């Protein structure tokens, strides 16, 4: 298992539309288990509703964890996707 802390830069935080795209991306890595964690709770990154329930705003820090599959590549792809959200 590897992990990385990501600071949300999107001005509107992680809202529904980009999260929908994020979930699609996560689901494409069928061999990996991807989770997102805040100090309050840890959720599956394959659940749009769960991610939205974290209420991530601009400036929030979230820990991205990947277990299984090509861990390094998956972590890199997903973290750069989250950082690229700018709406």
């Amino acid at each position, binding site marked *: 298992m590897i992990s990385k802390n990501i600071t949300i830069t999107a001005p509107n935080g992680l*809202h*529904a*539309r980009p999260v*929908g795209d994020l*979930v699609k991306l996560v689901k494409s890595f069928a061999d990996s288990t991807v989770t997102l964690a805040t100090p309050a709770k840890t*959720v*599956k990154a*394959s*659940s*749009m*509703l*769960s991610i*939205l*329930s974290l209420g991530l705003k601009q400036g929030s820090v979230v820990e991205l964890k990947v277990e299984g599959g090509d861990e390094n590549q998956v972590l890199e792809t997903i973290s750069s996707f989250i950082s690229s959200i700018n709406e």
Partner: protein
Amino acid sequence: MTIKGIGTRGLAAGRAFMKAEMHMDVIFCGDATAAFREAFEAVHEDLERLAEQEEVFSAHLEMLDDPMLSESVEAFLEEDMTPVAAVEAACEQICGMFAEIDDEYLRARVDDVRDVCRRLERKLCGDIRTWDEVEPGSVIVADELLPSDTAELDLSNVSAIVTRKGSRTSHVCIIAGNHGIPAVVGVEIDGIHQGDIILVDAYSGEVVVNPSLPQMKEFEARLDAEEASSGDVYGRRFDPAVTSEGKFVPVLANAGNLDEIVCAMEAGADGIGLFRTEFVFMLSNQLPSELIQFEIYRDAVLACKGKPLTIRTLDVGGDKPLAYIEMPKEENPFLGLRGIRFCLSHPEVFCPQLRAILRASAYGKLRVMFPMVDTVGELSQAIAYLEECKSQLREEGLAFDPDIEVGIMVETPSAVIMADKLAQNCSFFSIGTNDLTQYVMAADRGNASVSYLYDALSQPVVRAVAMTIDAAHREGVRVAMCGEMASDPAATELLLGLGLDAFSVAAPQVASVKEKIRK
């Protein structure tokens, strides 16, 4: 057996089609988790099949597959809930979690969650039929009809819809209205069974189950009469309504958003007699900018295609507050700061709206109307704000119609009493009979124990209408009516007799009110 609900319009008869005969209160015994998994798989298959035909169902499938839903249901099952109760609880939990978030896309996903949960519940209760089995002429009887149901249903086979849940503005009524299908909602459907003969009178909201022979005969006669007249009447909807004495009486429509204007034009309206602007102020959690308002009003006047559009300025108050403006709690909101009273005390709300309306007036025939005006002083103040906005626009070089007509809603007894003086200061009246009735009779329209007094056709209200029209005509001012009384076919002849110059009615009533005027 006759059951009563809230109806739309139209008459229909047919045999009941019940997709599921639900018994939500059954005691469940068995393996709840297994039952849920089984229902889950079955719904999954249904949605996969549907998603191949219609894109919307892919979104439903995504929500069904979202781990949060299953996990939440399973957590409730562990608390020994029945499967149906657990799905219901999970649905409420998830939807509640997002209720506060103002994001259109997310709201649509939350609606998808609800839809998916209803499907699961039905599966658990034993869906005994599918929508493919609906035979022509069926009366659909259901707890509620979801957007996914109406998408799946072949509506050409549906003669009427009867549901337990829903209001006149709910999805099912809107869809039914668009397809000319009579619908009655809020009906206690427990006594109805598959194959029962059902007579639906959506005008009165009455649903007759397994009628007697005389009931059948009487209903058939009404059905024949309606069919004979409605086709012809609808065909003449674009023809002007001219009375037997040769007077042209415009029949306008009331609208609360852009779609309703488009519908009204298709329904044959001679213009919009009341465009409510409250929706503009409820689009978001903040005051809409002048620019946003200008674009909406411009699109509205363009949608009228050269016919007049009467915009009513914001009509809010203690009874219908705005979330983002502090409104002190009032002991008696119907007698409090509402309508023009509110706008005059909040120029920061009023002036941007007036400027937006003026700017839109460059694009068509637009009139402005103030609600709840009591006195000449209020009207003069409102006009002063309008003139101030005009001179600002002139300085800024922005286009508007300098001769824009100004009118008022007559809906308080004081406006009726002062009608002559008010008429000297504006160019048209529109009588709002809903509020006028409640203020003339001093009877709350929502209070059932005084509902015997709330009658727009009672003598005091009719006299108030007559006084208003007479006073206005002496000053050369035209009078329209935009309350429910204007849509009531029983009142048309009376109102014409009193000299009413124009009617403003709900879009579906335009054709029939025009026909009534011609007679």
